[in-house]
């Protein structure tokens, strides 16, 4: 079983609704094995839709919804699934949730739907969703798969929100469209609104994660007696 969850705080008590794996799975998705900054997946949308914090938050919500529910459903189906159709089934389930979210967004939040453009639909091809389905949902019971999906979605959402916050602040002096740095006093830096700004902010964020994390990984690896 190739579940790459970093165990934090020693052994978890057995039992509980997630079989003792709930907390470590949650921390793994959100922090220790964060899909963007550690696994470096889902970069395309992380760069494309983070010009504004509001866009980043909606995109993050979309991913939490899709990853959590597709993980849950695929885990429920895992024992009956014909092996040969595995990838087709994963794609079908993921696409259904993504298209559903896109439809709801188009109906109730059309301006946001326009802002995000094709990127909501492109969640279907987001490596995080497929990756969690393949690596986790098909090997684990439904509840812990749901936790894993939600945590990875939240890990993605948190990183997007952080990038969105920094970029919106640097580019427009605003947070969620409200001016916090007055226009006359703060010179707007439109580089942050463009793609290079996104690359730079993401680069710093990945660096920050690695700065804070490596000792933990090395300690765990030493304990487990293997490479991290």
């Amino acid at each position, binding site marked *: 079983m190739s579940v790459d969850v970093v165990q934090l705080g020693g052994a978890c008590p057995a039992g509980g609704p997630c079989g003792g794996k709930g907390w470590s799975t949650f921390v793994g998705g959100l922090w220790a094995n964060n899909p963007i900054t550690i696994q470096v997946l889902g970069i395309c949308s992380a760069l494309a839709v983070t010009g504004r914090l509001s866009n980043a938050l909606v995109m993050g919500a979309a991913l939490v919804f899709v990853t959590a529910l597709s993980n849950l459903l695929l885990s429920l189906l895992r024992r*009956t699934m*014909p092996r*040969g*159709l595995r990838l087709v089934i994963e794609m*079908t389930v993921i696409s259904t949730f993504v298209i*559903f979210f896109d*439809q709801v967004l188009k*109906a109730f939040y*059309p301006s946001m739907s326009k802002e995000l453009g094709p990127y909501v639909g492109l969640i279907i091809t987001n490596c995080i969703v497929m990756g969690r389905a393949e690596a986790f949902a098909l090997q684990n019971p439904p509840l812990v798969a749901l936790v894993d999906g939600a945590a990875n979605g939240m890990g993605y959402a948190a990183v997007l929100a952080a990038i969105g916050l920094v970029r919106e602040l640097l580019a427009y002096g605003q947070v969620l469209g409200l001016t916090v740095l007055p226009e006359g006093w703060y010179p707007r830096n439109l580089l942050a609104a463009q793609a290079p700004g996104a690359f730079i902010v993401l680069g710093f964020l990945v660096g920050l994660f690695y700065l804070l994390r490596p000792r933990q990984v090395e300690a765990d690896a030493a304990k487990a007696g293997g490479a991290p």
Partner: protein
Amino acid sequence: MSLSRTSAAYNVIYAVVLGTACAGILTAGSSLLAPYREANERADEIRDVLGILGVPFEPGASSADLIALFERNVQREQRGRLTLYRQVDADGRVRAVAVPLAGRGLWGPIRGWLALEPDLKTIRGITFQAPDETPGFGGEIMKAPFRDQFRGKTIYGPDGKPALRVTRGEGPTAPNEVHAVSGATLTSGKVDQILNDLVRQIAEETQADVR
């Protein structure tokens, strides 16, 4: 008969059931949400019409509010192939008239609106949506410097025939002429064609109203 998980029949049945279930869910969702989606599409069009007519509206207004505002302020009238959108005030007087324009650009379709004063001669404003024209060249027709030239121009030439020219060169222009976008001769030519087709049509359909 028991099905093995590796048998072809099991695969086919599984695919059919899952596919049908997913398609069913999405179809149901889509038809439930259709009225909202249609209202939003209508609101997009309404935003264009209200903007060109100069009816003030809140940018964040909901689709339902926009449609209500539109119904209160604008009357639609079909004349032949031409649809007139009249802005009518509380006393029933016409304040402005908008007509949609559409045609082929250089690289793709050009759409937009032409707004006229109540005399049906003088131009109040114009908008273009030309997503396929080259940004910085043909795409400049969507920007204010080009569009603002039209304000106050007339759609009739000195000889009284309907014409609205997009001309090359500099210097003063006739009352029914605007300058083309430099570097975008071909797109400007297409715009000239679209506008002349449109003003001829307007002249034909509104002859009786022109004062």
